[in-house]
């Protein structure tokens, strides 16, 4: 072996095979999660890998109503279903869940308790479900084996077009307007896969293995099918076109819960195993750069292939997924929102209605749910602050009526500190942290004023090139920031302009692809996301900034403007609230994996 260590200072390993089985889902494996408190099979569930609700089932006696909440580590018992049952379906999130079937009963969970709703038109067991609490889909089931499909609109079920292949004990994934049904029992067991477009089902490529009593997770373009007949450990990943066999479960099982947002983050819980039932949970996760044998930049010699290789991080396709709902209700035009996808803060803004009042509510997000903490001292909206602050330290600046107020958050409460030199509202841009921040633009007519915060006081620094309001700002501190979008005059002329701050001056760089104001965003000067906004009309458009230019990426689930962002890069963040009246959160994630690359000249 080449004495690379002598040249470059480290050894090159000689390996018979690549240490990584490949990028993306091929490198993902199942790891153990927390155990259910109540061991059972034939249960249903909803949510994502780190926030799952499981309910009902059977442990050999009468049907169970037990409901448990999983936080990514352990299960906690919460209020029971009103009707104990088994072999039914669930969908939604942990705070807005729907349980249906087994046989016809529908119940909604609001994060605290279950309430009965209108029944399915066709009562059935062993059906599959997809969607959300207010836009759900039920399909397949027995007896007799059926392809019946029903849509739920938050109030009642309506029959729509049947599956092409009637079946029971199938897997399901997706949302009401883009669902996937796969496998199941038709006599015999089938590998058939169908996708639903909101109106009708179309046959697509089959599973590699015909199987029933399996579970599914994900969305129509990124799903996972796992477990099933014969206590199978088999796992197959769907990429929107075809199924590929990937790493297997450790514990083969049938009649269990599957949940998860994509084919890179799923969960299997409970179920029937040979001779009994299991309480075990397994979590399907892609390899990460924290794996000690899978570090980015590991150089090695593949003695079988005869190639020099390096392991490298690769990024998948970003997408928005539903997150938690604000406790205090609808929120737009917050004063400040900041943090990261799993630990964020929002303060102030407007609530609901055409003539809303300003609010001082502050809420913290833990990656799955929001909780209220101490209010701002002065309720207000239209402000800004340190958009790269944290849940433990940030500042909220300016606001309604042209306030110059600055409030400092210390993790438990807000304290008034030194005012801005120029009062400002109409959503100025902000960047930085509680000790090193920047606030720019805002007001009506728009201003170009720019102020720098050193942790104690504000100093006027070089102006924006273009006076702008209703824009977005982000940046690591007061020496590095990005300003994008907004309105540039009293008549509300919208702009796609992007400006970059280097600590001394602003420079115009490449524009957004879409011209808009009242947009949301997050990130830093070299890596940011812009989402939503008013073009008009309101848009679902999302753009990713790589330090040089903007690229259109995956859209929001629904159009919005006046939303609030949190996140520290273009790889992960949050879109919080927004207009029209919205209390929901969407989570932006670009999946990250490590893969093997062959080095070449």
């Amino acid at each position, binding site marked *: 072996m080449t004495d690379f260590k002598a040249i470059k200072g480290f050894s090159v390993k000689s390996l018979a095979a690549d240490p990584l*089985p490949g990028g993306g889902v091929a490198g993902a*494996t199942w790891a*153990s999660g927390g155990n259910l408190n109540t061991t059972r099979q034939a249960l249903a569930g909803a949510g994502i890998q780190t926030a799952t609700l499981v309910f009902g089932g059977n442990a050999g006696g009468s049907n169970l109503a037990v409901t448990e909440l999983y936080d990514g580590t352990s299960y906690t018992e919460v209020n029971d279903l009103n009707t104990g049952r088994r072999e039914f379906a669930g969908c939604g999130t942990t705070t807005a869940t729907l349980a249906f079937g087994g046989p016809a009963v529908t119940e909604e969970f609001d994060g605290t308790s279950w309430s009965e709703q209108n029944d399915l038109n066709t009562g059935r067991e062993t059906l599959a479900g997809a969607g959300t609490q207010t836009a759900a889909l039920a399909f397949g089931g027995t007896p007799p084996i059926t392809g019946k499909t029903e849509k739920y609109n938050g109030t009642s079920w309506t029959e729509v077009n049947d599956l092409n292949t009637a079946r029971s004990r199938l897997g399901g994934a997706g949302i009401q307007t883009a669902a996937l049904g796969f496998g199941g029992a038709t006599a015999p067991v089938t590998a058939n896969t169908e996708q639903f477009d909101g109106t009708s089902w179309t046959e697509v490529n089959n599973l590699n293995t015909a199987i029933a009593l399996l579970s599914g997770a994900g969305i129509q373009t990124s799903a996972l099918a796992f477990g099933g007949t014969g206590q199978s450990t088999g796992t197959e990943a769907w990429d929107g076109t075809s199924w590929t066999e990937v790493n297997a479960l450790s*514990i083969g099982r049938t009649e269990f819960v599957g949940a998860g947002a994509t084919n890179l983050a799923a969960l299997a819980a409970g179920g029937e195993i*040979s*001779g*009994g039932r299991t309480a075990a949970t397994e979590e399907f*996760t892609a390899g990460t750069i924290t794996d000690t044998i*899978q570090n980015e930049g590991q150089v090695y010699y593949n003695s079988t292939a005869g190639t020099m290789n390096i392991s490298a991080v690769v990024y998948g396709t970003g997408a928005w997924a539903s997150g938690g709902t604000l406790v205090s209700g609808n929120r737009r035009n917050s004063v400040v929102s900041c943090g990261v996808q799993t630990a964020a803060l929002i303060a102030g803004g407007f609530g609901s209605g055409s003539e809303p009042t300003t609010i001082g509510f502050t809420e913290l997000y833990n990656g799955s749910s929001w909780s209220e903490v101490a209010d701002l001292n002065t309720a207000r909206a239209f402000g800004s602050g340190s958009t790269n602050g944290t849940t433990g330290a940030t500042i909220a600046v300016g606001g309604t009526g042209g306030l110059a107020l600055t409030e400092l958050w210390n993790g438990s409460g807000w304290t008034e500190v030194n005012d801005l030199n120029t009062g400002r509202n109409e959503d100025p841009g902000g960047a930085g942290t509680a000790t090193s921040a920047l606030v720019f633009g805002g007001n009506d007519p728009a201003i170009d004023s720019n102020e720098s915060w050193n942790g104690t006081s504000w100093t006027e620094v070089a102006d924006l090139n273009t006076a702008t309001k209703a824009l977005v700002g982000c940046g690591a501190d007061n020496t590095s920031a990005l300003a994008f979008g907004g309105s540039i005059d009293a008549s509300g002329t919208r702009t796609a302009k992007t400006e970059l701050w280097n600590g001394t001056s602003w420079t115009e760089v490449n524009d957004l692809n879409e011209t808009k104001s009242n947009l949301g965003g997050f990130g830093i000067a070299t890596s940011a996301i812009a989402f939503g906004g008013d073009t008009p009309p309101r848009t679902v458009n999302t753009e990713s900034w790589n330090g040089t230019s903007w690229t259109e990426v995956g859209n929001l689930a629904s159009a919005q403007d006046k939303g609030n962002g949190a996140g520290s890069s273009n790889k992960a963040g949050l879109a919080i609230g927004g207009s029209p009246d919205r209390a929901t959160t969407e989570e932006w994630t670009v999946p990250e994996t490590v893969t093997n690359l062959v080095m070449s000249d």
Partner: protein
Amino acid sequence: MAYKYCTATNWGKDFFTHEERTRFHLEGHPGNVWIVGDNNYGDQWISKISGVSKTKSEAQAIVTGVIETAQGVWDDNNVSGESSDEKISRLGSRPATYNII
């Protein structure tokens, strides 16, 4: 591929991790029986979880014993007048023994 056999109770989170699953074969079976790929990483995992080593025949006997017990429970669980299909619908199929690898 060679395997080792042990028993251990799955305590939940981090009983086996993503990284461990990339390093060795792992299967869970009734009776808390685990089949583990025979390499250094598998040995380290057995040590981590305080696994009690078993021979393949001992592991097979544990798995079979659990399933046979479940078969007995299934056989004894009857409702007067119930057909075999109705019993399967109520309890699921009769547990079946199988051979581990």
